[in-house]
């Protein structure tokens, strides 16, 4: 069995681990790192429940091998909050009822996090296109868009106040 050492940063913490080459990033995160925020949904890169942020880009961790993240910087939903203080996106999903069953939520949050880095003031259409790789089977898209909008407004107001 060919396994190899990888080192990467996960949610700001330096991590070293040994993985089989065939270990998918999502399995590494959930099973070896106990980071069960990223979910396994379709396993075929359609649903986006496994979305994480790798080297400043949203990716689907079910379709990347853990070895490919070697040397990288990774953010999962567990890294969004600042201690007990929710990230504005998490607060937005809470305030705007942006989730029902919650299965898609970690992927929605990490994708929306990167979307707001790329486009801090997106229109509703841009939000919809931006999260088009994330499926919600409770069909809660209206409130998800509102939640992202809430977060964008809150972040922009805070920055305007600085």
């Amino acid at each position: 069995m060919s396994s190899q050492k990888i080192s990467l940063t996960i949610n700001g913490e330096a991590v070293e681990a040994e993985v089989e080459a065939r270990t998918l990033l999502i399995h590494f995160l959930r099973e070896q790192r106990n980071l069960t925020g990223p979910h396994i949904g379709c396993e075929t890169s359609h649903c986006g429940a496994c979305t994480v942020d790798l080297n400043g880009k949203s990716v689907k961790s079910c379709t990347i091998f853990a070895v490919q993240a070697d040397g990288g910087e990774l953010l999962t939903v567990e890294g969004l909050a600042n201690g007990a203080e929710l990230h504005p996106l998490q607060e937005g999903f809470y305030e705007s009822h942006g989730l029902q069953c919650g299965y898609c939520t970690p992927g929605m949050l990490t994708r929306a996090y990167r979307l707001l880095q790329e486009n801090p003031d997106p229109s509703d259409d841009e939000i919809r296109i931006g999260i088009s790789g994330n499926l919600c089977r409770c069909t809660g898209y209206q409130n998800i868009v509102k939640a992202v909008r809430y977060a964008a407004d809150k972040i922009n107001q805070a920055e305007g106040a600085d």
Partner: protein
Amino acid sequence: MTPGVFEYHRPKAVDEVLALLGQLGDDAKVLAGGHSLVPMMKLRLAEPAHLIDINAIDALRGIRQDGAAIIIGAATTQAEVIASDLLVAKCSILPEAAAQIADPQVRNCATVGGNCANGDPGNDDPAIMMALDASYVLRSQGGERQVAARDFYEGVYATVLADNELLTEIRIPTPAAGVGMSYQKIKRKVGDYAIAAAAVTLAMADGRCADAAIALTNVGDTALFSSAAADAIKGTSVDAAAIDAAAQAAMAAAAPAEDLRGTVAYRTAMAGQMTRRAIVQALSRATGS
């Protein structure tokens, strides 16, 4: 779903890839974006003993002007295509089509080279490269050859790419100013392959179509280059009758399979309809109207 066991290679240079391919042949697969290959590996439809990851090779990335050609490195992602000012200015069909491929996360990984070399008739770039008369640069330890996109595809997942060769870059003759181009794709939902799609480039001179190229996506075993469809508008004013004749020729060239995306008759009709729409948009862009 976990893929079978393989040995992972992450070379830093093209020559290392070519040495590995020369040594391993069809025991190895090249990993670019991986969004076609990895799902196949999970289903055990692909079980390569070696995986050669080309993502650490900077020389395979990037989009640049080189004399009369636009060069796209094979490992350039679809997200990078969308963000390319050069392509938006000179070859807008590629970023416009890329925005219709998969979704944002997948486009951050999925590469142009993978899209072109994979041989899946559902991929969008092959028809576009045919319409643009692009060439693929194929390298092996034995040397380098260029194959026109129009000559590259042999069947479903079958291309002229040899087991010891790597697609390193795509060379597109820079479209002349005034060339109109359009890619029209009908699909069921975001992320899906086309029910049918058409790529059109055309140039007008003195009110007549001086040159045109038309190719179709996902209505045959490969992308289909249709000289007959282009011939139907060449030399004409591209009026309704000529556009209709081109659509009829595209439908005659189309040979789709019936699947979840529709019946043979429906997908054939959509090949015609996408051809019409692409000609109309390319014409309006060529004439600035």
